[in-house]
């Protein structure tokens, strides 16, 4: 997609008030307290250890740092991470 087409696409989706996760494929992170995070719209797992989870999203990489990280379920569209979450970084 050229930059001109991309800007037009952004303008249309903004005018239609489409949510960014649908229009742009932006990663959606829902954090509940410090113990639970629900992540949607990712491409895949790049790295997963007990203290680090690195995910590939459409426009960035999402890093979840913490201790005892544990994926309670994992599907193509959505995953739920439980454990002690200390940081969430966009790389």
């Amino acid at each position, binding site marked *: 997609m050229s930059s001109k087409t991309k800007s037009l696409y952004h303008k249309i989706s903004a005018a239609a008030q489409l949510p960014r996760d649908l229009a742009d494929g932006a990663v959606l992170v829902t954090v509940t307290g410090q113990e639970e995070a629900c992540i949607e719209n990712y491409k895949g797992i790049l790295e*997963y250890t007990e203290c680090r989870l690195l995910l590939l999203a459409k426009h960035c990489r999402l890093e979840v740092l913490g201790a005892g990280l544990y994926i309670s379920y*994992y599907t193509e569209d959505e995953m739920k991470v439980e454990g002690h979450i200390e940081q969430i970084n966009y790389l």
Partner: protein
Amino acid sequence: MVKQMLQYARGHVRIRVTGRSYERFLNMCASHRIILWDLKACDAGYEASLSIKSFKNLKPLARKSGTKIRILEKRGLPFFLYANRKRKLLPAGVLFGIFLMLFLSCFIWDIRIQGNEARTDDVVFDFLKSRQVSHGILKSSLDCKALAADIRKAFDNFIWVSVKIQGTSLVIDVKENTDLTLDEKTAAAPSDLVSDVEGTVRGMITRSGTPLVKVGDKVKKGQPLVVGQVPILDDAGEVADYQYCAADADIEIETRLPYQESFSMKYIKKEYTGRLKKGVFFSILGRHISFLGTPGGFGHYDVVRAEKQLHLTENFYLPLSWGSIRSREYVLTEKVYTKEEAIRKAQEFLHKFLWKIQEKGVQILQNNVKIETGSKSCTAKGEIVLIERAGKRVMRSLGE
């Protein structure tokens, strides 16, 4: 909970994934729509749970990603059944259980009566018993419509009855007639009001008909109070005709009610000795089996049973109940009331009596009851002055 039950019913395996690129393996699982749960990083790889169906599709993915898969644990009903495949009695027991449940669900194990106030449950149960409707009756032998009609016929004040079967329960909903006003048919027919008590008229409001008595008049039982005919006068002031109607009036009559109550000064008192025996009982298909509760050696005793009936759902009652039995021993001793106790007891009787007559809607004007105690008996005697609503409807034929 439901999710876990489904997972158990379908069966799942816990696997350990080790190898070179297990992240790739995870991504491939996601892209092949293989759902993993309880994914945990461990020393040399990952541990995850997945369904049996998904596990069967894992082999090509593991080969592509160069990982090794090891089954750590097999959980769920399919594995349990496979492990116990040689135990023939297990499925036979399960089948027997299902058959028993289906068989027992053909009967009524619970009867509920709702909406009755004036007629107690016991009265309705006695009636049902006389119609051979009781616990344990076959559902197919019940004709709900006919039973509802029978109940309506047997109880006058039930204006609406619904009988339905819910699971193994027979639910009888009734609506009682609390409105004491005349029904349309009676109200329309010409009728008189006659006195059903003896006394002095203290208040009278006539709504329809011609009053024959006035306030202050003394009336006897059966005397007409209001007649259901209104004279129509002509221009000369003479009676030209009569218009017939249902007499309607509020008539308050002062009556005197004699009261006498006496009881012996001697009485037998129940005194608990403190000896108690506890036990349990089971009841299967109406047969009771009790343990330890039988009070051998007790002279007189009270038995208190707390019973619980087994039910699978709110309405599915099974013929199996259990509970506890408590037997308390007591001795009967003869005692004599003191003067104060006797007066208190006589007053209690009187209050109960007054409360009972007040429930019928009468007002108490005077209470002239005197209590006398003697060595042998205590007597409460006197007269109670009441104001009560009078007027018994008597149908009349035209021209009477």
